[in-house]
């Protein structure tokens, strides 16, 4: 544990934090631009050229808005709620492999903060804690609508977590490892997991929409029934944290989908080009971000295309469709492995 290594890790962590926040900030602009494109209108175009400064304007507005904490609320938990939501959203990026190692001055610098041997479970543990931010915030507001929104959100997240966890067992079985680094490395060339796990990917995709509380599963903040859902009583930057955490979650979900099913930083045929190690690593990272962008675009696209589910439809879909499909995927993968012979 020398100084260079420590500095590198600290700098990398700070970079990841900035990256997650930056991508999330520009996701809000991108979403509004895509919305306007789909609905045939202009969208935000006043602040800066093409509206490129809009996220800064939005953030500034949230900072300077009046801060209200309801007198009947539980103050400590009211403040803790958005903090938990934001921090659980941000810490997941630590285990995602962002690229092959860079070689600088004869040393290997991995583009991953922590190569845990249980990275997949780490992500699930953190995601399952994200629900506390919503529950605590909704309860501490001391408002019926907030509580209803919080209950909806938490039962939805627990239900979909199950199917989500089962959907990636197929990938884990094929790779034989819970480390995201191993999973990404095993998908070299065209051995992308999507080709052997299409059903697992479908279940994972639908569940990640529900886990991010995104359309069409955003019943927790269904304004027609619950005013604003769990964040009804929130204002100023605390509201901003809740809204922002959703976009950070979306970014991480997209990164997880790209890593688990679409080869992560792998680019087919990259090695045959004869690039140097560092250039190849950077090309791989660029490819990963391209894949992530496609998924983030998909999140936006779905939001402006599908209507919101009804609550009983949401639960029926989770428990009666996705859950059995995920089990079927595990059985199918087991059969395939048994026929192929274990390696």
């Amino acid at each position: 544990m020398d100084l260079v290594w420590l500095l590198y890790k600290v700098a990398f962590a700070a970079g990841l934090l900035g990256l997650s926040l930056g991508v999330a900030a520009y996701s809000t602009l991108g979403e509004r631009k895509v919305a306007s494109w789909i609905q045939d209108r202009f969208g935000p175009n006043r602040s800066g050229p093409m509206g490129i400064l809009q996220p800064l304007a939005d953030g500034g507005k949230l900072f300077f808005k009046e801060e209200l904490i309801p007198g009947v609320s539980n103050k400590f938990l009211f403040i803790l709620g958005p903090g938990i939501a934001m921090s659980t959203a941000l810490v997941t990026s630590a285990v995602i492999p962002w690229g092959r190692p860079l070689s600088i001055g004869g040393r290997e610098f991995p583009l991953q903060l922590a190569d845990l041997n249980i990275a997949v479970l780490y992500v699930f543990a953190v995601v399952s804690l994200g629900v506390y931010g919503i529950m605590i915030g909704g309860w501490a507001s001391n408002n019926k609508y907030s509580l209803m929104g919080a209950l909806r959100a938490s039962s939805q997240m627990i239900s979909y977590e199950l199917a989500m966890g089962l959907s990636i067992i197929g990938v884990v079985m094929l790779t034989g490892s819970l480390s995201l680094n191993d999973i990404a490395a095993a998908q070299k060339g065209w051995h992308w997991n999507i080709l052997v796990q299409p059903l697992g990917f479908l279940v994972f995709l639908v569940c990640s929409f529900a886990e991010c509380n995104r359309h069409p599963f955003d019943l927790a903040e269904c304004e027609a029934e619950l005013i604003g859902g769990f964040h009804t009583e929130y204002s100023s930057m605390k509201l901003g944290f809740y809204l922002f955490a959703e976009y950070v979650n979306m970014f991480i979900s997209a990164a997880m989908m790209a890593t688990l099913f679409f080869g992560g930083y792998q680019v087919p045929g990259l090695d045959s080009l004869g690039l140097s190690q560092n250039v190849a690593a950077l090309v791989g990272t660029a490819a990963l971000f391209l894949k992530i962008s496609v998924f983030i675009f998909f999140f936006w696209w779905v939001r402006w295309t599908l209507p919101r589910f009804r609550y009983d439809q949401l639960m029926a879909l989770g428990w009666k469709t996705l859950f059995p499909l995920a089990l079927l995927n595990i059985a199918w993968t087991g059969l395939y492995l048994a026929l192929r012979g274990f390696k």
Partner: protein
Amino acid sequence: MMSSILFYGLSTLLFAAALLVILSRNPIHSALWLVTAFFAVAGHYVLLNAQFLAAVHVIVYAGAIMVLFLFTIMLLNLNKETEPQHSLLVKLAGLVAGGMLLVVMVGALRRSSAETASDLATVHSGTVGLVETLGKVLFRDFLLPFELSSILFLAALVGAVVLGKKELGE
């Protein structure tokens, strides 16, 4: 050095959180302190190089069971008036039962270090808690008990579904 600082820090947190679970007036606060205690236990698992156990502990206890607990407490809206009053006899019985459990646990742990030193998980280097080791132990050495307990879980699952199901025509 680093490990002992972490160990004592986590242990202090664990004890403080566990005490606050029973000393808090508000049931929601108790539940949240229990979540904090679970985190401290997960931290101990990580110190023993049992990352798999730590992750599963957080997912199952903090992520699922305690969320359902909180759920129930929030819906019941407990307060002072609805708090059940126990008689002195019940309190005394609880104290005796708890004390006896403590005696049994201390008795069991007192002899463990000498006899079972080879089985103990070791800080940093141990492999007892890794997913490979656990999988081999569960599916090779203890396959029958493992499958039997899974049947028990299945029975509980079916029971919960039957209890939760609405009667026809209701």
